[in-house]
């Protein structure tokens, strides 16, 4: 596990030397959208019907790259089932409610929109369940851990010391 974490950290920090290959535009359109926290007044989530149909299959390699990019660009990143405004699982909903209650901005992707994303997310963190929360590029845990940390105050400390933005 430590090696895995080290690899993730290494990629996130060493952006100067190990540059991320940009994801091809046609693939970017195929990916599930990046959704916003319910606290963002102008957050909108594109319905699948309106998204252009992908001509290319997403590969796991692309997903890993996407995740690296997601967690690098977004200090508080959540992979969940459903969207922040419409969670589709009790555990995902709990995480969203906690983050919303704490007032921190976050971004999320819906793993139910794409099977490759769902598998890739689990492989990347070597964690078998969804939701998954990343803070400053580091995997923090799933619902249980977030809940526990929230109760002990550890989560507030973590987020306060992170690059995550408090918007409420």
């Amino acid at each position, binding site marked *: 596990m430590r090696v895995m974490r080290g690899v993730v950290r290494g990629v996130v920090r060493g952006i100067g030397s190990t540059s991320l290959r940009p994801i091809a535009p046609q693939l970017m359109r195929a990916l599930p959208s990046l959704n916003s926290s319910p606290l963002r007044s102008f957050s909108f989530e594109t319905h699948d019907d309106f998204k252009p149909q992908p001509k290319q*299959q997403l590969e796991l390699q692309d997903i890993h790259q996407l995740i690296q990019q997601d967690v690098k660009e977004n200090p508080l990143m959540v992979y969940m089932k459903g969207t922040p405004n419409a969670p589709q699982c009790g*555990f995902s909903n709990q995480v969203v409610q906690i983050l919303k209650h704490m007032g921190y901005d976050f971004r999320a992707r819906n793993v139910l929109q794409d099977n490759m994303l769902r598998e890739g997310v689990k492989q990347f963190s*070597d964690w078998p*369940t969804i939701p998954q929360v990343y803070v400053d590029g580091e995997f923090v*845990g799933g619902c*249980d*851990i977030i809940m526990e940390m929230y109760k002990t105050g550890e989560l507030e400390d973590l987020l306060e010391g992170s690059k995550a933005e408090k918007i409420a």
Partner: protein
Amino acid sequence: IRVTSMSARSKDSKKVTKESLSKVLSERIKGLEQCIVVDTSGGCGSAFELYLVTKAFDGVALLERHRMVQGLLKEEMKAIHALSMKTWTPAQWVKKKEKLPKELLK
């Protein structure tokens, strides 16, 4: 690598029950003082909640505790969709068990 089958439940994975899970955990975790397993999928064996108490968790970070248990359940995880767990040390258990519903502790 193209992954063609996304099904978490493959034909080979045996059905997991709370009894089988309980047995496996008791065998694989050192000094397990408490092992409470709840099937939260209504008997389907696809979602479980675990309450595990052992001294082995002393001084171990929460994330590591979870990873430890998950590592021990690699095979079982193939058949399970959701796993919730409470991983406590004996000291934590003393306080936490007060707040648990009575049926759980039977």
